[in-house]
Structure formats: C-alpha cells, structure tokens
C-alpha cells in the first residue's frame, strides 16, 4: 500500500504520545486492569455495572474478598438491574467459579427485572461455559419474559419449565451420544447413566424426540405460536454452533426462520453464523 511522504510525516508526529500514558499501558495486564478499574470507579463510583466489571478485575488478580465487596456494592446500588447480575455471574464464570456463577444467574432471575436482552446474553454466556441445558432454559425465559406472551395450553410446558424456579438449575454437562444404537433419536437413559450422566436430563415420556444424534434440551416448537422477534434467537444459535451443538443450533434457527421467513437480515445472519462456525465477534 503506497502512502505519500507528507502523510507519513504527519503520521509520525501524530503517533508521538505522552510518555507517561503509554508507559501505563505497557505494564502487566493485571496492573493495567487494576489501575483502569480504580480510575473508572473514581469517575463514576455508583455505576453498578462498572462495579461488577471492577469485581471481575479483582477476581482476575486472585482477590476474591475484594471482588465480593465490589459485587456487593454493585447490587446495593441497583439490586434489580439484570445486566449487573449478569456481569457478576460472567465474572465468576470467567474466573472458573461455576457454582458461584450459577448462583448469580439464579439471583438475576429471582431479583432482577425481566430484561429480555440481559437474559438472552446470559443464555449465550451459559452456552459458552459448556452448560447448554441451563443455557436453553435461560433462552426460553428470555423469550417468555415478554409480558405480551400469554400462557396457553400450547405453551404450558415451556412456562412450567420456568415455574420450577431458579434453585432447580443444575450443573449439567453435555454427554456424548449413547453407545447403544438408537434410531429414535432419544438418548437411552440407562445407557447414558452408565456413562455417569444424570438420567433426569433426558426428555420425559410424552416429549417429542429430537433429531438423530445427541438429544439435548426441550421441544421449543410451542414458541412459534408467539410473535417472536427472532433476532434474539440468532445469537443463541451462533453460540450453539460455537459449542459444537449443531442440532441445538438447528432447532433455534428453524424457530427463527419460522418466525420471520421473509426477513432478509435473518437469512443474512444465519448465513454468516454458519460461515463463521458461530465465532464470536459478528
């Protein structure tokens, strides 16, 4: 790429930076994050979401006590902000504290406002953490949080999932397909239990079987009776692709397309999701 000489000269002058500021950002990453967190807190001490991010920095530095204090202050300031709860849960997840993370997600559901976007992002976070069943339940919750959706006979099973309450959320790992040949697509609970899986995971009698392969999650076809936005399902489908759960992605993309079959942006987003294999950043 050819660049004129005058431009090169101008650029070299522009690139000269105050030495102290550049020096700050050449330190150890944890030190940078700590200093930035302190500075941000000085500028806006009561921003609950910022406090949650500062807590994440403390966890990164191995200072759990300080992190918990930051989280406590964050929730003191705004106990109903679902996004603050989610950021706290994410901080725990990223630092490897899965039980604490799930507790925070539970708190988000119990005490936070019904914030569809925050719940949808939480669903993606759970999927990225390798918790697809919890993720899907959160995604369903995100959709049903829209007050215009009424509970009817056709969607009763989905609403009742939410009635089970946050304390029933389990840490569930995805199990590989059963070694027992199974043409119906429903995992054989007995065979799966032999692999150490929780037999309660699997679809109860009366639920529709999933596609061939690993059957995870629930039948979401009842959601199509609702007037879905559709776009919030795309991010979840991407996350499922990222998690190498193509059947789950298929289920959610199918729902999205049924909700908005003539929406060009939906098709564009689905095409790119598959092109990228669900990679983050789109």
């Amino acid at each position, binding site marked *: *790429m050819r660049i004129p000489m005058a431009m090169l000269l101008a650029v070299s002058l*522009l690139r000269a930076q105050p030495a102290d500021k*550049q020096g700050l950002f050449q330190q150890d*990453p*944890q030190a940078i*994050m700590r200093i930035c967190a302190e500075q941000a807190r000085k500028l806006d001490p009561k921003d609950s979401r910022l406090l949650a991010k500062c807590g994440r920095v403390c966890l990164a530095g191995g200072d759990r006590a300080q992190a918990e204090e930051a989280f406590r202050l964050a929730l003191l300031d705004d106990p109903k902000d679902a996004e603050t709860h989610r950021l706290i849960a994410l901080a725990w997840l990223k630092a490897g504290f899965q039980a604490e993370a799930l507790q925070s997600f539970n708190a988000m559901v119990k005490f936070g406002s019904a914030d569809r976007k925050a719940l949808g992002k939480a669903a993606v976070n759970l999927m990225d953490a390798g918790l697809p069943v919890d993720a899907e339940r959160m995604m369903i919750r995100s959709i049903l949080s829209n007050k215009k959706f009424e509970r009817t006979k056709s969607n009763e099973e989905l609403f009742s999932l939410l009635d089970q309450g946050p304390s029933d959320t389990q840490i569930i790992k995805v199990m590989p397909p059963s070694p027992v040949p199974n043409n119906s697509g429903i995992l054989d609970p007995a065979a799966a239990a032999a692999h150490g899986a929780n037999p309660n995971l699997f679809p109860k009698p009366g639920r529709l079987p999933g596609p061939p392969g690993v059957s995870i999650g629930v039948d979401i076809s009842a959601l199509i009776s609702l007037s879905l936005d559709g776009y919030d399902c795309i991010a979840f489908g991407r996350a499922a692709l990222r998690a190498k759960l193509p059947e789950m992605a298929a289920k959610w993309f199918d729902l999205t397309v049924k909700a908005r*079959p003539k929406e060009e942006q939906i098709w*564009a987003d689905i*095409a790119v999701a598959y092109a990228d294999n669900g990679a983050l950043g789109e």
Partner: protein
Amino acid sequence: MRPLFLMALASMMLSAQSRFDEAFFAGDRKAILAGSAEALRTLKPKDAPYLVRCGRAYLAAVDKTRAQELFRLAEALEPKDGKVLRGIADAWLKHGYKSEALEAYELVRQRDPGNKEVLAQCAVDLAEVAQIREAEAFMDMVALQDRDKWEYFLAFGKALLVSGQRKKAAGWFARAVAVKPKEEKVYAEIIQAFADTQAVF
C-alpha cells in the same frame, strides 16, 4: 411486470420453506450455506450488502467462483460504498484469501477515503489477523482526519491485543485516554479489551 414476477418467485421459494426446516439446519453445512445464501438472494437480489453476505456464505462453502460473481455484482451496484467494499474484503480475509483481501481493502482506501467509520473497521479487520503494517495505514488515515475518535482508537487497540501486539496496543489505548481522560467508559472498555482477549484469564 418483472418486479411482480420476482416477488412471485420469492414467495414460491419461501413457501417451499418446508425445505428450510430443522432437518435442513441440522444437515450438511455446505447445503445450509448455499440454501441460506439463495434464500437471501431471492429476497434481495439487487441489494449490494446482502449480495456480499451471500458471497461470503459461498466462500465458506468453498465455492470461490460463485462468491466472486456475487462480489462483482455487489461492487458494480455500489462501486464507491466503502461499507460494501469492506464487506467484500473482510469476507476474503476471514476465509484465508489474503491477496484478494488486500486488493479489496485497497479499493476501500481509494474509493471511499473520507469514510472514517469504514476505514477504522478495515484497520480492526487487518490488525486481528496480524496484518499490522496495513492496519496501521488505515488507522493513521482515521487519526489524520479526526484526532478525537477515541472509540476507534480503543477498538484498534483491542484488535492489536488480539494479535499479540501489546506494545502497539498500548499506544492506541494511551491515545484514547489522552482524548477523554475523564470518561469512565474509556477505562471500562480497556478493562474489557484485556479481559476479552484473555490476556489476563
């Protein structure tokens, strides 16, 4: 008459929607890519940004010929739209076609040099794949036009972190802070950049 015909065709295609069901999306990836691209093209046959997305899907399905055809169509429709040209370049880049990508990025620079947003996005695209010299050329163009675009400086710093260029990232983070020393969002974004690039975790 022709628009009516195309609308009828689109309706027929989408009402053959029964093929775009859960089994389709759980099937062969190349078939999904091609099917989605065709559904999109049927809906928006003359929309350059969507043609670029179609092309990208075909590239991912390893159909370079069809992708090139769609990119040419898109470029012909909007030859000076930096966003369209950058979309083409990004598609080439993401699928490993370096020389095609660099040619396309050069077109952005030549044909839409005043579009700071797109130039900044080009810089980020190239930085993330460690094409640092080319990336800095784009970002320098942005900075020359507007020294106060701290959001772009932050995004570029993060992209440099992604490709392991910590020292260079430091320069751009410093620049962002110099522009807005009392904006807490700047510091929050820097924290996020380090957290997201796993530099800490």
